[in-house]
């Protein structure tokens, strides 16, 4: 039987696993570092796959069910690989009052997918946020990390079509 202190080997040679391991080491492999570690995995790999959940769960000695439970409970974590580009529409109250729902509808129509999905060619993901806290710029859309305030459907469509054409 394995000694409980034994740490599982890194899943592969990929350097990113060492970054993940670094986060766990910094927290002394404490169980409460689970969320922090999953943040690092998602930052490094873009999403949480089965392999990473198993590795993190085994390293921190938490049941796999707990790791999976946490990964699916929090909206920030995703178990699916993200698209090359990401369009994130803020659905906070101020954005909603100023027409964010119409922007979502336009994005869904342009990309041919629903919120939370990624196009089959993995070119673009469509996401929504609860509130980004920049409500004075409502309605707000984030294209690959770039915040655009006072967004309108025409500009949004142009931007997304640009991605799909590239």
């Amino acid at each position, binding site marked *: 039987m394995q000694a409980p202190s034994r740490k599982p080997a890194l899943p592969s040679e990929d350097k990113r696993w060492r970054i993940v391991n670094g986060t766990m080491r910094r927290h002394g492999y404490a169980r409460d570092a689970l969320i922090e570690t999953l943040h690092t995995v998602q930052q490094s790999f873009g999403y949480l796959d089965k392999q990473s959940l198993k590795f993190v769960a085994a390293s921190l000695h938490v049941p796999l069910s707990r790791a999976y439970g946490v990964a699916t409970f929090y909206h920030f974590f995703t178990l699916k690989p993200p698209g090359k580009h990401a369009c994130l529409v803020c659905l906070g109250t101020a954005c909603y009052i100023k027409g964010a729902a119409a922007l979502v509808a336009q994005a869904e129509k342009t990309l041919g997918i629903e919120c939370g999905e990624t196009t089959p060619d993995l070119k673009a993901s469509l996401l929504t*946020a609860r509130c980004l806290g920049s409500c004075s*710029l409502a309605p707000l859309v984030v294209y690959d990390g770039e915040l655009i305030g006072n967004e309108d459907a025409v500009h949004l469509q142009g931007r997304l079509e640009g991605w799909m054409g590239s």
Partner: protein
Amino acid sequence: MISVEELDQIAETVRTERAQGRHQINVCVAAGCLALHSDTLKGALAERAQSSGISCQVRGVGCMGLCSAGPLVSVEPGAILFQKVKPEDADRVLDSLKAPPAKQHTDLRQTPFFKRQFNVVLENSGKIDPENIDEYIAEGGYRALFHALIEMTPAEVVQEVASSGLRGRGGGGYPTGLKWGTVAKAHGTIKYVICNADEGDPGAFMDRSVLESDPHRVLEGMTIAAYAVGASKGYIYVRAEYPLAVKRLERAIREARRLGFLGSKICGTTFEFDIEIRIGAGAFVCGEETALIASIEGMRGTPQPRPPYPAQSGLWEKPTLINNVETFANVPPIVRRSGAWYSAMGTPKSKGTKVFALTGQVKNTGLIEVPMGVTLREIVFDIGGGMPEGRKFKAVQTGGPSGGCIPEQCLDTRVDYESLKEVGSIMGSGGMIVIDDTSCMVNVARYFMEFCMSESCGKCIPCRAGTAQMYDILQRITRGQAGERDLELLIDLCDMVSATSLCGLGQTAPNPVISTLRYFKQEYLEHIHAKRCVAGECRMAATQAARS
């Protein structure tokens, strides 16, 4: 380690530098203006100043409040504020150092938006560089910590905070001094202090702004609290959606440790305290204190029945003090000036000031701080400048998904915990969204119910199933598929969910429905009987037929 004398020296150095007659050009680098590329603007200003040989200091500062006019640039001395500045305006800003500013940049500080405010929490916001601890010290920062640690006993600190009348700014309104006293009295050698920066209400960004503009104020408040209750470890739980706030906090913690305001032997005493940041992962329910504790412990953020309250048994079952960002931010001025000074502001039951995020269909949007007791009308129509051209006021929404919509006839309500409750809303954390007549109130209720339904953690049935049922009914009303019986069921469900849910999320989830039913029942009835939406927002059989 640093002494009071050295603190004075740092402050003196900063002040001398400022007094050398050099102008300061302050560019807002909080998230709102950054999204409008104020960092590029800052670079352009610095470059133009250098190339044209103008002696001035170009600094990044925190939020100046009027986010709708961003990017904002202020010039000191002179207190001139420029709005919507583009990199190509750099020369014009620099020209103002020599001559009076051009007319298109009128001095905004003289407008009601700024003149009607009173800043305590935001006193340094927009004035200091949030990434430089020396500037916070120059404004009197960390004096309160010295004062508390060296001249006061923990019990006296608790007493001072209690006498200020400060109440929890996260929305609950629980007296802060009472909470601190309970944790201080709780048995145990290990205690924790948690700062709740999981600002989940949509349309609220007070805490983000404070953390981005004046992070040391929160650290100082937490450290004073730790001394008062006897804690040696603190956590700040921040939303993942606020990366800039996290970055500035990390830097602030490093600087505070360097100068001995965190760590061991704080301010040369035997007191030890350190702070760790925990990043949330996008769950609204984690704003509830027991769910937040579960999340810090690395688990799913589900709440626990109270009692036991965190003050007795919180993080890792130790006595834990949880306050939100704005509450901690109020502590340094209270300790520095006195509880009596603070309690002189506000109303008999709600003391001090409150920060609001004013957004929606109103001319001036941004962050404001007003003394408790001002009316909603003053906020919306004086500070907010009223409705944009051609818009008609319908309601103001406060308290996020736990709050309600306040109609025109209640606009003279004073802003305090009790008055807002009386009109069917709550103070909440400070989101204030102005709604005009193009928004359907049934749809607003549906929007918040969708929020609560998807944010329900699923632990207790009334909230998990009740919010889904209420959402379903509201959805049918907005689609013109509901009958009178549905409305009765909806009202029943409001009672049931609020009375039987485990935590605040479920208990307050019906509030948006209850308040819109109270003031805008006519709209519900028109949707049900006439299949008509006066705002023209809901697409129903009748409206579609009328269009075709």
